[in-house]
């Protein structure tokens, strides 16, 4: 069971400012634990502040105050090969509503939270999604080999990822071993 240990933000990184990496997912659903696993390993590096949200609801609103740039790390299902890493810029305009915002608290997603912040004239950070294509989210506590390998590569080459964030990106495949490729 995870206990938050490192909430202090590091020094601002050039034009990214204070960077916070937020892992999303469940530790009990196979590859859906990719966010948890990556945060766990990034913490050991000590490069950036990290946070893990197993149930990202209203608490996301508070996290948005804590950084100038937020990288959400989550499982991705796009049809690409398992382990494929994609980097996407996130904006409220591009997000689809869960159409449950007026329903229960379970319906509060990132889009609804960004809308509330916008209505309150609260500035929101730049946001990116680092999505890792998964093989299976069946119940279990082990990552697939392909996703384990992807986590290892992202951790090893995280400084390179930060460089790419500074260059600005809309969406790209991220292949740290070679060079990033615009999609």
């Amino acid at each position, binding site marked *: 069971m995870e*206990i938050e240990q490192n909430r202090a933000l590091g020094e601002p990184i050039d034009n990214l400012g204070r960077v916070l990496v937020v892992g999303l997912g469940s530790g009990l659903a196979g590859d859906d634990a990719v966010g948890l696993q990556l945060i766990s390993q990034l913490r050991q590096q000590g490069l950036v502040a990290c946070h893990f949200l197993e149930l990202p609801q*209203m*608490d996301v609103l508070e996290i948005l105050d804590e950084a100038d740039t937020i990288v959400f790390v989550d499982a991705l299902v796009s049809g690409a090969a398992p382990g494929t890493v994609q980097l996407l810029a996130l904006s409220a305009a591009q997000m689809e509503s869960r159409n*449950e915002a*007026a*329903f229960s608290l379970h319906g509060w997603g990132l889009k609804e939270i960004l*809308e509330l912040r916008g*209505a309150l004239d609260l500035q929101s950070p730049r946001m990116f999604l680092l999505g890792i294509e998964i093989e299976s989210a069946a119940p279990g506590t082990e990552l697939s080999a392909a996703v384990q390998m992807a986590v290892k590569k992202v951790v090893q080459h995280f400084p390179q990822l930060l460089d790419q964030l500074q260059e600005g990106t809309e969406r790209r495949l991220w292949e740290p071993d070679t060079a990033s490729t615009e999609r």
Partner: protein
Amino acid sequence: MTQDITRTLRLENLSRVEGEGGISLCLEGGQVKDVQLNIFEPPRFFEAFLQGRHIQEVPDIVARICGICPVAYQMSSVHALENGLGVVADPAVRALRRLLYCAEWIESHALHIYLLHAPDFLGYESAVSMAEKYGAELKRGLRLKKIGNHLLELLGGRAIHPVSVCVGGFYKVPQREELLKLRSDLDWAIKASLETVTWVGGFRFPDLTPDYEFVCLSHPDEYAMNEGHVASSRGLNLPPSQFEHAFLEEHVQRSTALHSVRAQAGTSYFVGPLARLNLNHDKLLPQAKQAWMAAGMTPPVRNPFLGALARAVELVHACEEALAIIESYQEPQRSRVDFSIRKGEGCAATEAPRGILFHRYRFSEQGLIEFAKIVPPTSQNLRRMEDDLRLLVPSLMQRPDEEIIRACEHLVRNYDPCISCSTHFTKVRIRRN
């Protein structure tokens, strides 16, 4: 609207609550024929899969019942297990557990008052749509919630599903210096919560005054949170060990949540902030008591819509008490007491933000759970919500369906229902004959 027409009104998904449920109304001949709260969030079987788990796993597992009130589940479980083991926690640990509960009351009450309930009173669909006119108030509510969450994180390791609570005490306790850093935040929170009482006191409260039986814990020396006798406005006063003799859970076919009733009479009862204020107002801390009196509240307060005001007064109390505990806090020599595991059975009741929460466990010589029973506050209020709807709807019969549905949702939100807990709840359907 002619009276010989059947009108069926259905609210498929009750909004601004925690979890999933709906309301169905059948109106026939100008009368309310049927009222149903339909709880369709899947049953979650916690009591079953606790069986076979070790007693020290219980606080962490039951915390998963709810993302808004996990502390309540941790508190009722550790007290029940400690009662079964004969374990008495250190007084400093008792104070810390109370502080943890205050943190949960702060974040939960602030969330409900500002983001879930205020739009009903102010005529908005959601907090987002009321932000333009009430931005300052919403920011105040969000900051209050954040302070509660920060305190939860400091004490519990993380704000949602804290992981520090164990049978016997805490795995880890905070240092005095860490807690003292929160003093200025809590000073601000007391002022903000007093402003909350004034703001909520200015709302227009619909007129409804059922003859409730209010039920809550009552303690001779403090505003009951973690312990006390089970008391009611009709003279009930018994130890938590007798809870199941006075209150029965019933299966209702349409609902994945059990409904609780009084054992002999089979009647509904009311748990939550309004019950606590009616029975325990004399135990409020000074600023909360002053706010309650200044709002003109004279018990018995039976208008369920005034539950919003009761919640605001409890917000003041929780902030006051949190500050008092922090200022007098000294780190305990040991964060938890040692104990020997033995075969046993124990129960406890504590006050979750939404009302009384009862747990009972039986465990083996190895400390493995053989039986678990959890009675959450929302399932205790479900029958009462249906009774309230039966009383409210006749006054609304001539109104359009949309207005009836809105009024019913508002009424149910008075109870701050936590449906995910109860299925351990709302759609409205109205059928007019």
